[in-house]
């Protein structure tokens, strides 16, 4: 097809057929793709399910939800949330910009009676708050305020706090250094418990505690820090979760896990974290 010419033929002249044929081929292929994918297949599938052509095409493009081949389902079940806390950017901003001084003032005024001078609680049924995650404190106070979690003392106290002060208190405690190590139990931690914390128990479908509770694991935002927490308090809360009395854990993850732990596992885990392991 290339005729013989004495001098070097101009490559652009040679180019003409390439330019035309390649454009036709490439455009043809992609147009067949569009025709089949966006028009033929959705319309034919829609007809088999009683969906009109326009809706089917919109679903194939992703403008409308649902599959072009199946009637879309709508649900009108009323919501029954277990916690009203919503992690929106503004809530996270409020937490990030909370005023620690105001928080300290409110803590001195209300919280130290039970939670102790610098977040080290005065009695076994009150949790330590020093070094606790700000988001975790914010969520629990929010749940007390909305009644998602009930406690004789905490409900009224939480109701008295507004959003900003809650964040300030949370930020203050989050800033407190943890100093409640229990060296005695630090060394002793039975391998079964370490196994449960690091690898969970696939047999009973229990995820590892560390996957959510270790800081920086990228787990749920509201997961509390457990290190150096009172072991009696941890045991009490796990039992409340297991019995379902405490139900402000979103989607019941803690209730499910707690219900599958044996009593000595609960004690072992409480001792493990009481010792200060991360």
């Amino acid at each position, binding site marked *: 097809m290339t005729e*013989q010419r004495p001098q070097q033929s101009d490559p652009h002249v040679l180019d003409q057929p390439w330019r035309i044929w390649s454009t036709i081929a490439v455009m043809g292929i992609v147009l067949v793709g569009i025709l*089949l994918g966006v028009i*033929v*297949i959705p319309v*034919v*599938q829609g007809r*088999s*399910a009683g969906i009109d052509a326009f809706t089917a095409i919109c679903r194939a493009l*992703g*403008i*409308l*939800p*649902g*599959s*072009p*081949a*199946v009637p879309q*389902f709508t*649900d*009108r*079940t*009323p*919501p*029954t*949330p*277990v*916690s*009203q806390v*919503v*992690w*929106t950017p503004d809530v996270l901003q409020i937490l990030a910009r909370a005023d620690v001084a105001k928080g300290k003032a409110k803590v001195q005024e209300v919280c130290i009676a039970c939670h102790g001078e610098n977040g080290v609680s005065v009695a076994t049924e009150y949790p330590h708050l020093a070094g606790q995650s700000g988001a975790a404190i914010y969520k629990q106070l929010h749940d007390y305020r909305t009644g998602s979690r009930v406690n004789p003392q905490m409900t009224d106290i939480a109701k008295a706090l507004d959003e900003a002060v809650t964040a300030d208190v949370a930020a203050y405690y989050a800033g407190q250094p943890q100093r409640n190590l229990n060296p005695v139990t630090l060394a002793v931690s039975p391998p079964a418990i370490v196994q449960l914390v690091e*690898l*969970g128990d*696939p047999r009973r*479908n*229990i*995820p*590892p505690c*560390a*996957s*959510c509770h*270790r800081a920086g*694991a*990228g*787990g*749920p935002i509201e997961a509390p820090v457990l290190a150096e927490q009172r072991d009696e308090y941890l045991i009490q809360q796990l039992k409340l979760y297991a019995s379902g009395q405490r139900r402000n854990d*979103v*989607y*019941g*993850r803690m209730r*499910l896990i707690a219900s599958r732990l044996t009593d000595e596992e609960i004690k072992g885990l409480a001792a493990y974290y009481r010792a200060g392991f991360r």
Partner: protein
Amino acid sequence: MSDTPHEVHESRILRTELLWAFGVGIFVAASLSMIVFTALTLNVNPPSNVERIDPKTLHLSGEFAEQNLGTTVFGDGTVIVRAIATQFMFVPQCFAVPANRRVTLRFASPDVIHGLLITGTNVNTMVVPGFVAQVHTEFTRTGDLLMPCHEFCGQGHSEMWATVQVLPVDLFKPGPDGRVSCAKR
């Protein structure tokens, strides 16, 4: 001017390459024809459902509220399974479905990207926060199947799995409210 042997070779090579290119065309047509044929006759598609849902308020929604999760059979016979894929657990961790009957599975994630497949079946979808993942299928084999999370979602990813009990039609009995729960094994 007759073609020199040099030219004969070149055009013959070009002809064989074009012939092979034609063969490649058949290969492409064969693989695409199977896809288009089953799309048109059996409605086989990848699961798509551009239905936006805010992951931040998912737990406040009605459809994905705790009590509404699991299998529900409606008056007109449609079987819908709703489940949440959240960091490091499917909720519910076990749900029952009927065999050889169309089932719609709807999943949502309140936190990070998850994904799931049900072993031995064609149920497979990503669960992207912000969208409801929806899969329409029939389960052709009964038994307890495994539904693991197959997209890395954090440190607990390997322990995130659920069980799917595919029940024969006679054992699949919805309660008065249309709910079906897993048989305790």
